[in-house]
């Protein structure tokens, strides 16, 4: 059968059929894999929350090892005693609090009259009660986020940071142990005032021995990412301060 391939009608028909075939194929793939991908994202969040409160699989010095995906759901149930959603003055229990999209809440909160939902996880590890808060901010190239575990007095007990596209070897180091572990023991409150923790350059404390200076040592070559971490801690954790004041009274 001789078909004139230069005719416009042939081109059109070819294009339409091609689009239909490719569209169907991709839609099939996407909906087939969607549950697995969604589950991965859920597990990742649970792993991050648990990591912040010190439940992990770390063995060596520089390890950042999560609870394996197949066990994380059980571990999450064991260690997280309560999940709260704080809206203004009230805090209500909600078992799906960890699924709250911090990014979307942040965008919605910019509009007037929206009461931001703040998820808070209360965990218990070796008899110690820990409060874990999500934070989210901007690094140099893209979003950075993390989870901060504190005790009742808002002294940091563990952190986990992650990023979308910081420079490997520089800003991307915020998810390395030597940076994250520096936060442990740092205070967020100065008496009753919220101070946050600053990622500071040249603070004469590179080994981070002084734990009440509201500073950790910065990463070389990652000034903007470090500033982003300081800013995100300051802005996002400040929102939780009223809650901590209320439980301490």
């Amino acid at each position, binding site marked *: 059968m001789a078909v004139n*391939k230069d005719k416009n009608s042939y081109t059109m028909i*070819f*294009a339409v059929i*091609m689009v239909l075939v490719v569209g169907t194929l991709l839609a099939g*793939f996407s909906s087939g894999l969607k549950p697995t991908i969604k589950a991965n994202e859920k597990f990742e969040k649970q792993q991050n929350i648990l990591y912040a409160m010190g439940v992990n699989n770390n063995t060596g010095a*520089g390890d950042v090892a999560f609870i394996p995906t197949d066990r994380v759901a059980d571990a999450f149930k064991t260690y997280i005693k309560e999940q709260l959603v704080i809206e203004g003055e009230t805090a209500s229990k909600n078992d799906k609090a960890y699924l709250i999209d911090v990014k979307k809440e942040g965008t919605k909160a910019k509009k007037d009259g929206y009461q931001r939902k703040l998820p808070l996880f209360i965990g218990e590890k070796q008899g110690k009660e820990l409060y874990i808060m999500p934070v989210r901010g901007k690094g140099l190239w893209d979003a950075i986020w993390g989870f901060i575990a504190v005790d009742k007095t808002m002294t940091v007990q563990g952190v986990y940071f992650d990023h979308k596209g910081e*420079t490997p*070897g520089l800003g991307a180091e915020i998810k390395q142990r030597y940076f994250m572990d520096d936060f442990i023991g740092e205070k967020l409150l100065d008496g009753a005032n919220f101070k946050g923790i600053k990622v500071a350059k040249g603070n004469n404390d590179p080994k981070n021995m002084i734990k009440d200076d509201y500073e950790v040592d910065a990463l070389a070559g990652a000034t903007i990412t470090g500033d982003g971490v300081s800013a995100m801690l300051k802005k996002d954790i400040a929102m939780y301060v009223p809650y901590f004041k209320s439980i301490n009274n």
Partner: protein
Amino acid sequence: MGLLSKKDTRLILDPLTDDNPITIQVLGICSALAITAQLKPSIVMAVSVIFVLGLGNVVISLMRNIIPSKIRIIVQLIVVATLVIIVDQVLKAFAYELSKELSVFIGLIITNCIIMGRFEAFALGNGPWKSFLDGVGNALGYGVILIIVGFFRELLGSGTLFGVKVLGDSVEKTGLYAIGYENNGFMVLPPMALIVVGIIIWVQRSRNSALIEEN
């Protein structure tokens, strides 16, 4: 008589050495610079490109007699994009950690000039089996360079291989670091990848004088 004829073998082996897409044709440089700071992403990238280019070449070759020449570039783009999206989704579903590490660069396989180049130059004029070999060969040639560059950048830049500290601990000053060795921070930045690729080209050309153009 083996599985591959002499001609077929050349299709696979030439791009590995004397017709390498990166060092000889200087294609696909952008991704070679971007993702080679560590060894593991380099390898996953290489495997992904082998899949996309091998299969893409076959698909284009099968369709070569029915593709209207007026829209052939767009048809090629759609084929690459489709395969890349499939790779991306599969990685997200079954290798979530890795897909996060490679993030946007899997998507950027679409813009890899090697792929469009092979579709246009080879698959449109040859049968499926030959096209498959050509695709895999070129992707291997690309992958080999990625892995070499990734090896040196991770080793000299971070002192690790696959994340394992092979030179000792830079913070606690053990191993090589105890005698004053320092990581070269430049190696983790993309420009150093260009210099490593340059050195590979230099070595390759000094070993094979046939590659040097005559003026």
